[in-house]
């Protein structure tokens, strides 16, 4: 177990390094100059040059890369060029918002998917199953921004149960304001989740131990709770784990649409203003989230499914 953990952590190092490196070079290769963007077009060339020097952007790219890596190794994420403050302090404000959003959407996705999936398995030819199927295809074809705007239109404005975007003060209000954004992200992965859960349920219904349980006269309800749902939850956990990247991507779009001050909107600001250090820090944190979630997924998987071994 410990050896497995150490090996996994060692394997994660090159992945994280790769993420940092790619985002560094991608951002620096994109045309645009953070100094010019910050100073506006009225500032003269001398001002731009002075600011570039102050930010160390006049050094060669490899030099900047090495010094950035050195800085990271000391646990320093650097200074945001756009917000004029330390990135660590920005992260402390923004990261929790996005994490809550991702967790909420994962919960919603599960709550929606399990009943849908079991419908299609228990009565595959019923009307409900056909509706689920159509729903799945429609949702799969609808871009996240479109789902978000339709939810705002109907649940935020027509019926007006939820706020139509924004991030008010107070924990309760904030949680309430995160409901629609979380639902939007959740819907985007529901089709995949339903498909996976279905597969798992079909597999366990046809497995030997379910036939054995049936032959012992166990009720269908009990079989479903004891064997099928348990089996499905294992597969659900792994799908959610795999999809954490999709959830994070969804957060990027949805935070903009709903005016949620999380990591996604900060990252977008960073990309637009060529705030190199900020973009790199955000991709690093997103990357770490993905790596950690994968690790946790495997741990949970091993715990739930005695057949799986940590090898």
């Amino acid at each position, binding site marked *: 177990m410990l050896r497995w953990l150490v090996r996994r952590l060692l394997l994660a190092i090159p992945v994280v390094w790769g993420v940092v490196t790619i985002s560094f070079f991608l951002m620096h290769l*994109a*045309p*645009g*100059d*953070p100094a*010019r*963007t*910050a*100073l*506006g*077009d*009225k*500032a*003269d060339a*001398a*001002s731009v*040059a*002075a*600011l570039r020097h*102050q930010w160390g952007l006049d050094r060669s790219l490899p030099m900047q890369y090495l010094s950035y890596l050195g800085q990271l190794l000391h646990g320093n994420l650097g200074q945001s060029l*756009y*917000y*004029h*403050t330390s990135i660590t302090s*920005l992260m402390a*404000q*923004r990261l929790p918002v996005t994490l809550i959003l991702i967790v909420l959407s994962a919960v919603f996705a599960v709550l929606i998917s399990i009943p849908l999936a079991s419908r299609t398995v228990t009565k595959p030819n019923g009307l409900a199953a056909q509706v689920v199927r159509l729903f799945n295809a429609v949702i799969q074809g609808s871009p996240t*921004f479109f789902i*978000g*705007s*339709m939810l*705002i*239109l109907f649940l*935020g*404005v*027509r019926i*007006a149960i939820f706020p*139509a*975007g*924004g*991030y008010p*003060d107070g924990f309760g209000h904030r949680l309430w304001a995160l409901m629609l954004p979380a639902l939007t992200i959740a819907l985007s992965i529901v089709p995949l989740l339903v498909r996976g859960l279905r597969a798992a349920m079909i597999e366990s219904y046809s497995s030997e131990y379910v036939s054995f349980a049936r032959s012992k006269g166990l009720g269908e309800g009990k079989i479903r709770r004891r064997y099928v749902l348990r089996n499905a939850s294992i597969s659900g956990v792994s799908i959610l784990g795999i999809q954490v990247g999709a959830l994070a991507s969804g957060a990027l779009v949805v935070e*903009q*649409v*709903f*005016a949620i*001050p*999380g990591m996604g*909107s*900060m990252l*977008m600001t960073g990309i*637009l*203003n*060529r705030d190199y250090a900020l973009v790199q820090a955000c991709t690093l944190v997103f990357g770490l989230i993905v790596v950690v979630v994968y690790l946790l997924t495997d741990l949970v998987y091993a715990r739930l499914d005695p057949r799986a071994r940590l090898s």
Partner: protein
Amino acid sequence: MIRRRTLTSAFVIAAAASLAACSSGSGGSGASDAKLQSGGNLVMARADEPTSLLPSVPTDNAAIWIIEEIYSTLTVPAQNGSGVRPSLATSWKQSADKLSWTFDLRKDAKFADGRPVTSADVKFSIEQVQKKSSPFAFIDSIITAMDTPDAHTIVFHTAKPWAPFPADMALFANSIVPDNYGGKSAQAFAQHPVGSGPFKFDSWTKGSSLKIVKNPDYWAKGTPKLDSVTFTVVPDSNTRATQLSSGQIQINEYPSNSSIQAVSKTPGLKFTSFPSSEVDYLGMNTSRKPLNDVNVRKAIRLAIDKEAILKSVYYNRATLAGGYLSPTTWAHDASIKPTAFDLAAAKAALAKSSVPNGFTTTITISSGDQDASAEAQLIQADLAKIGITLKIKSLDPASQYSTKGAGNYDMAFGLYTTDIVDPDEIARFAGTFSGGVHTVYTWFNNAQMNRLADSASSASDQAARKKDYDQMQQIINDNVPYIPLFYVPGNYSYSSKVHGFAPGATGNYFLEDVWLSK
């Protein structure tokens, strides 16, 4: 000042406001008979978050307009943009040799921490702006030395006779900060800024809101009337509109043009266009063929149906532009009329040019800017009628800075606004090759423009200056390096409970005069 047009404008979502409030009732005019009241918290929603509250750093409106509430400047722009009036300085005069300006400071002005405002603070503040890495260093570079004969007098020596100086001192960047930032580092000061303006900095939750509170020690007694103002960041324009109609906010900054109808139908809401110095233009790279041919540029100007753009993109909330200086400045030349849409004349002009049968060129627009995209498509259809094939290329705003800066484009939209009320800054920026970015990226270089700008800034007589500026506008109009398309106002939608809200031509909110009725 920069109006950021970013990708966020693409996230324009299902709108909401009118659906919620589209009931009935006409005209949302406010109760003008309401009695003046003090107190209350004003909430204003805006698209962007301020970048920095250190006066010498930012160029974005989101920061500038808050800085103007927290700090004071020596002078302030008159609301109508005609000139400046006293603020921290009670009076000023130019020396006989015209090479220095003496300002007398008021003696009752205090910083929010209780210290009096002195000439040493002024000197320190200006020095920060003069630092090379400050965006407005070019404005204060005219100052060669500063003397502080006593605590309430400051003398500025200028490199040459400089008429716009009092207006320069009203620039937000020249806001007065405590000497040596009150002993703090610039960064620590920026987190808890201290000024002598009508409001005091209170708190800032990055990414969501910034609050300022009434400064009880503000020297103009009886103001401000509000207890506090909260600025919230809501990137999506439709979310802002919804929040306004639900009463969650009182002022919506930058409402989308398409929301005008919905807002003006809603009782209790107003949509007002305040005069602004913004000029939207179509720039052409005169260093490239065939755009280097003035006949080609004239043909393009004649072929664009500006009225159609005004209707479908601006919803008639702008004015067709003539001269390149906006009507909000006294230097505006009203005799230059907008060029009328005339396809026959356009074809005739093109026939006289180096490319009588037309050509292919490219227009670069900001990605995500739907207005620019619509405008470009309309112009594309117009130019096709005279044989010019216009291709559209979209780039994100930061890339666009680089491409335009390097002269690596054919045509592009742009807009400029002035930061100071004197016409000098904008006349140079949008008219001269060296006074900004190669005549707003057109590479149009005319030596006479520099001479006229210099002559205008050294003369003290406004009538004489006006003649120079008229001539500059005529040169641009004759050579068409860019086509001023529209004079665009500052649009705000707000609750009729808000009174006295009237942003100036340079964008200042003047929130000290604003009050809320119940």
